């Protein structure tokens, strides 16, 4: 069926993160969604069931591959094995969107496998710009880089996070995957104005938006991807759509994964906002 794959994302329809507990329900329901997003590394294997499922879904939906392990911000050189597996996946499945995170995951060859924040300095910016360039050269395509949630800031930071993200996009020639929940989480954890963050990002530079739920522990907000999108994040999302237009929007839910219809309900709400706010004008 190769060649009949849907390529372009319909931006007025939100998508969902595809996780294995939903494979069978998704096959049975085949709901109308703008696209599906998977974690790239979950399909780095040589064969077997995960790739067979992905083939099935790819024949029916536009795809986004979202990496969590490339460690773009690390001072270590890019892991060529990892990059080649990503290239193999991208070449095979021709995703509409390929994204990674503005973070580091490990250093000196040892990994935390967590998305750790950067110090926001000119040196760090130059470093990540160069890394994104290497990835785009290898994949022969533009990638998107996502702003991460964080629970600490470094004293050495001299650039506001929003300016760092905006500069990365303009200097590296990549797009931004704007995680609106992460902006909200960070605005609460680090006391800044989330709306100001959004207004600092150039229109036209945002290629995708993420929405998810967080957990308020009382002392800090943790980006768990384990709950419904909060009211404050929906409001911030409306503001983002009124600024950026109809950007492909994704609901992420990775822990305490609910029944599929809960996830589809959240995607439906994002779709309603896209259609009401962007009024049919794609970004």
């Amino acid at each position: 069926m190769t060649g009949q794959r849907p390529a372009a994302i319909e931006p007025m329809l939100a998508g969902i993160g595809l996780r294995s507990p939903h494979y069978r329900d998704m096959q049975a329901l085949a709901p109308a969604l703008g696209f599906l997003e998977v974690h790239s590394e979950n399909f780095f294997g040589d064969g077997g069931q995960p790739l067979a499922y992905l083939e099935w879904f790819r024949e029916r939906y536009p795809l986004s591959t979202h990496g969590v392990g490339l460690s773009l911000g690390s001072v270590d050189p890019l892991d060529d094995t990892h990059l080649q597996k990503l290239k193999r996946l991208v070449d095979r499945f021709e995703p509409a969107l390929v994204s990674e995170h503005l973070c580091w995951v490990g250093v000196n060859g040892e990994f935390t496998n967590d998305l750790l924040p950067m110090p926001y300095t000119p040196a760090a910016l130059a470093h990540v710009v160069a890394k994104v360039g290497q990835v785009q050269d290898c994949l022969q395509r533009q990638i998107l880089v996502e702003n991460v949630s964080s629970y600490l800031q470094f004293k050495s930071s001299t650039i506001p996070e929003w300016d760092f993200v905006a500069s990365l996009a303009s200097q590296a020639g990549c797009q931004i995957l704007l995680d609106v929940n992460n902006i909200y989480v960070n605005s609460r954890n680090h006391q800044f104005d989330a709306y100001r963050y959004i207004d600092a990002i150039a229109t036209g530079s945002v290629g995708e938006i993420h929405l998810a739920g967080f957990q308020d522990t009382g002392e800090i907000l943790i980006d768990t991807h384990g709950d419904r999108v909060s009211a404050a994040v929906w409001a911030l999302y409306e503001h983002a759509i009124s600024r950026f237009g109809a950007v492909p929007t994704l609901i992420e839910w990775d822990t305490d994964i609910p029944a599929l219809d809960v996830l589809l309900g959240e995607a439906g709400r994002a779709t309603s906002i896209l259609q009401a706010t962007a009024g049919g004008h794609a970004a």
Partner: protein
Amino acid sequence: MRPDLFTIQTQLKRALLSRTSTAAHTGIASEIVEGTLSAQRRIAIYRHNVFTNLCNALSDLYPVVKRIVGEVFFTEAAHSFITQIPSRAGDLNQFGREFGPFLRHYPHASDLPYLAEVATLEWQWHTVFHAADAAPLDLARLASIPADQMGAIVFALHPAVTLLSSPYPLLQIWQVNQPEYADDWQIDWDAPAVHLVVYRREFEVRIQQLTGGEHIFLQSAAAGLPLEQAWQAAIAQSPEFNLHGFIGDCVQSHIINNVEPAVLPAACR
């Protein structure tokens, strides 16, 4: 003068992959903005996330080990493993390969000598699940080989096949620790050593017990030995070894999925 990116990352990584904060971590703590929470508390939040995530990855890989030892023991062992043998790749699916060898030398598991072997079996399950796809054996190809050359052919195993031997009744241990297992929890600890093949059928990973002869036959094929030699090795181990029946079973289950004439020694091919 603030430290450079290398120093910040090296120090924070070291703090996050330690079980608790120590005096050695004050350097990175002094680089973190405090605000409403102390720097050590912020590091502790990340450390908790790191350990939880890596521990969950091990739980997913090693459900039988976890069922045998229980949640508390498993978490403690996992945390020791994470600090002693840190993750070496950004791809979390690469993490945990050495958990079996780690358990073999883990002092608290010395009463459970079979635990490390269960872990090895579970890692093999993981590798077989993700191994490459391959077409089944073309029977016409096998039929086209002249009878007088049959002894020289080499059978190849499907990429999603691994072999394992253990002095413990691993298959029984595996079976009684599956979530759907409802019978009595009885294991014959005096059972002889087991030989297992882990393979895939319709994307489902299966584990099957082999006789000693069957095991040597597949091991010989995997090592590139010609049929005649593999057969002799199998008979020497198990005089009752049924060559035609076993090959038929292995072709049917796709354990054997290719055949080639052996014109060169294995090392040269």
